[in-house]
């Protein structure tokens, strides 16, 4: 078997240099300079071969054709078909010119020894040589399961949260991100939670060792929040009626709920706007099967001129359908210091039955107006961990942050 070299392939396409030179001077003598320009580097090859066949003369610096040798035509044709195994003189010449080379011989030899045999692995020699036609490919035990391999995967809880995120985006919510370490101001005061409220006690929230205080925002915002607590400001409320302390508000704490981020967003939000956050939160709970070291809270707000209590229920019902696959929902009165009215929704999950799924309410005007928002704001929080536990087949909330590599490797993705 013979194959064309790269040069051979080139001349098959363009024509041999000497053939091109003959074509150039066939209609009459041509200046040496012109031929050099036309043929470039290949001019010397062309001239060398033409001299060998004695078919070109140089007269007064011009190239003149004297005859058209058959050998040149034979060689050109020889390039067209080299697959023929015959070792002709033309092929020999082409080989000597490095336009053709022997090829595939070893491969064929290597492959031929398999002829008529049963082989285990199909290899390149067999495939290229065509010898595969003459062998029997041994059947495998195709029914034995594949050998185990470990692939890279998302952490199942994070993957679940990613799905939640996607769904909220589909529902028109924009993601917000807030700081892990918060001022009590944003975690409580801006949410109209009074400074002596039991939930601000150290048993309910963490504080920091050092430094204890951060910097409060200045200007009207601070004055308005202070006034809302002390006397209701211009919201039509009487307020909580106590002396508000900026020192207390400036204390630092790990965020106890994602609503702190919602409060920050309200000072700079679009109307209409929908926002959500999946926020890592921290509370001093005794760690057990229902209380982790820290937890993710999925919560958000809807800011819209057209909102009322019915649309609040509408939003929650939509969540129940989208997240819990529930058609049936039940609403209960609830209480949060920062919403009025407040509602809790239970949803009938197709497999879990009735689950408390969502807490929500209309932000109090004592909260929204000092932050510069004059339209109704609905705040909601989803009990997404319960659904995550169900989806991932987990009984203990601490297993959401599973460190068990064996289980993570076994965890199915879909």
């Amino acid at each position, binding site marked *: 078997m013979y194959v064309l070299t790269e040069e051979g392939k080139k001349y098959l396409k363009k024509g041999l240099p000497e053939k091109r030179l003959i074509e150039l001077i066939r209609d009459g003598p041509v200046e040496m300079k012109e031929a050099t320009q036309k043929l470039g580097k290949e001019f010397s090859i062309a001239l060398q071969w033409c001299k060998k066949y004695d078919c070109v003369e140089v007269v007064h610096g011009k190239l003149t054709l004297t005859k058209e040798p058959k050998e040149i035509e034979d060689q050109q044709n020889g390039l067209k078909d080299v697959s023929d195994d015959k070792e002709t003189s033309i092929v020999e010449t082409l080989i000597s010119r490095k336009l053709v080379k022997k090829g595939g011989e070893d491969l064929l030899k290597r492959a031929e020894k398999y002829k008529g045999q049963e082989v285990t692995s199909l290899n390149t020699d067999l495939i290229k040589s065509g010898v595969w036609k003459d062998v029997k490919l041994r059947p495998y035990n195709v029914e034995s399961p594949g050998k185990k391999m470990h692939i890279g995967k998302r952490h199942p809880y994070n993957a679940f949260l990613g799905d939640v995120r996607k769904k909220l985006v589909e529902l028109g919510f924009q993601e917000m991100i807030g700081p892990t370490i918060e001022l009590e101001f944003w975690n409580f005061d801006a949410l109209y939670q009074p400074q002596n409220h*039991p939930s601000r006690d150290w048993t309910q929230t*963490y504080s920091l060792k050092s430094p204890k205080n951060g910097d409060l925002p200045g200007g009207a915002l601070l004055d308005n929040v202070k006034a809302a607590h002390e006397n209701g400001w211009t919201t039509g409320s*009487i307020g909580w009626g106590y002396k508000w302390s900026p020192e207390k508000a400036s204390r630092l704490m790990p965020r106890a709920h994602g609503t702190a981020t919602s409060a920050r967003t309200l000072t700079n939000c*679009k109307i209409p706007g929908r926002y959500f956050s999946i926020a890592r939160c921290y509370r001093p709970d*005794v760690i057990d099967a229902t209380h982790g070291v820290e937890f993710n809270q999925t919560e958000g707000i809807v800011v819209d001129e*057209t909102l009322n209590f019915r649309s609040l229920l509408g*939003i929650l*019902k939509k969540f129940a359908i989208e997240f819990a696959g529930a058609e049936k929902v039940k609403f209960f009165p609830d209480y949060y210091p920062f919403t*009025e009215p407040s509602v809790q929704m239970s949803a009938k999950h197709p497999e879990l039955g009735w689950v408390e799924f969502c807490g929500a309410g209309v932000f109090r005007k004592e909260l929204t107006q000092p932050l510069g928002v004059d339209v109704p704001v609905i705040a909601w929080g989803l009990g997404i961990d319960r659904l995550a536990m169900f989806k991932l087949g987990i009984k203990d909330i601490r297993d959401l942050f599973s460190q068990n590599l064996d289980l993570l490797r076994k965890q199915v993705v879909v």
Partner: protein
Amino acid sequence: MPTIDVSHKDLCGLIGRKLSIEELRDDVMFAKTELDKVEGDVLKLDIKDTNRPDLWSAEGVAREIKARYSPGLPKYEVKKSDYVVNVDKSVEKVRPFTTCAVVKGLKIDENMLSQMIQLQEKVAGTFGSNRREVAIGVYDVGQLQFPITFKSVKDKDISFVPLEFKEKLHPKEILEKHPKGKEFGHLLKEDFPIFIDSVGEVLSMPPIINSDFSGKITEKTTDVFIECSGFDLRFLNTAINVLVAALAERGGTIYSVKVNYQKTSEVTPNLTPKKYTINVDSVNKMLGLTLKTEEILVLLKKSLYDAKQKGKKIDVLYPAYRQDIMHEDDVIEDVIISYGFNDIEPEELKTITKGGISKEIHIIDKLTEIMIGAGFQEIMSYTLTNVNDLYARMNTDGEAVEIEKPMSANWSVFRTSLIPGLMDIFSKNRHVEYPQSVFEIGNVVLADNSRETKARDVQKLAAACTGNVSYETISQRLDAFFRNIGIDYYLKKGRHDSFIEGRTAEIFVGKTSLGFIGEIHPSVLNSWDLENPVVAFEIDLEFIFKK
């Protein structure tokens, strides 16, 4: 959220109707309550409203349900009396205020007694911030000689037998020995407030304990003296009103007490209904319905209000035990509860908004994809850890943001690096098949005085491999990571105490150092009980977010 136990039979008795568990399940909603569990005759109720102590008893829940059948404002008569409590100047800086009442003609039975004790505990505990804001004492009037004095004493000045004890103790001994003293002792220091009667018999030492002599209520008691003490009269008035209104529901007759301060005096309890005015339009705007004024009036009365139309407004009167009404929305919520949450048709949002994920998460998702493509298992760790894992076991040192009074020393500081979390994974999975490759993308918290919160979140990516691995294992993967995000990086010999010297490099992009890569030092492997080499890198993602 207060949780209370009530007897089914007792509750029905107070409502005046026999209601089944299923009927109650719906009806307790009108008291912002959920029926959590039924254990025989005992109903476990979750009362949602932490700002409505009037609801935290069988009497309170029954009152709201009863109003569904017989609507209107409840009326409480307070009879005048000669009972006097003198407040001495000495309590001014210790526990300056008290509100008091006497209730007579009680027929105390087991249910009533357990409700009295439970309500007292919930009011002082939840509403009164664990007795700091409100401490409550209830006494048998028959054992007392009025007038009573509220004063502050020093430890050696007094001794009395505390409830359930046999011997007389000084205040400090009570704080040391009595269970209640141990629990609430932190609220007192060198000055001890006491209620003491005219013959020198101590009633109690608030907010710790009553005396065994007069502070014990039994089924034989018919007349009680109640005092609430604390720092803010608004809390104290609410507390005394809640307590006496509950006893009035049981047929008790309320008598006033005159409390004399240095210059002023107050007559408590004051159960005169309070006034508020709401706009009809506000109700309908909030509700999304068009209720007629008459309908709203009916709904209000079913929520224990007295309501009268005045043009486009409604004047309401509501019971004095409520202190939660600050804004018309507070009244409007009661209208909506009275209407029934589940009788309102939910409505879809009318406007359209565009959703989106944050820029950081968008990028993190892509980085995660690359790491998974490189064969790493994603890990999710807590952001809280401890200095031992974070620094000591990593052979490093540093400053972490620390929590005051953590629940557990194991979770007391915020992580500043993600690598210890990955080491923890390897350490906990030594029996699991090798090689192991894990990564985490997450935030660390760094102290930062230039920020309003004196800290900032920094997103990091850390990856580690263990098993038959070498520096090349991880450098190859780091290289793949950077090539796939199109960032030119270079490595420069570096020093990091967690890594082996000579097998550590600092990762740079231009002049910015993004982190370290290297082979973990054997001393670190020892401290995590690891037997295989570990290679790891950690980079700061802020640079990539900005790109």
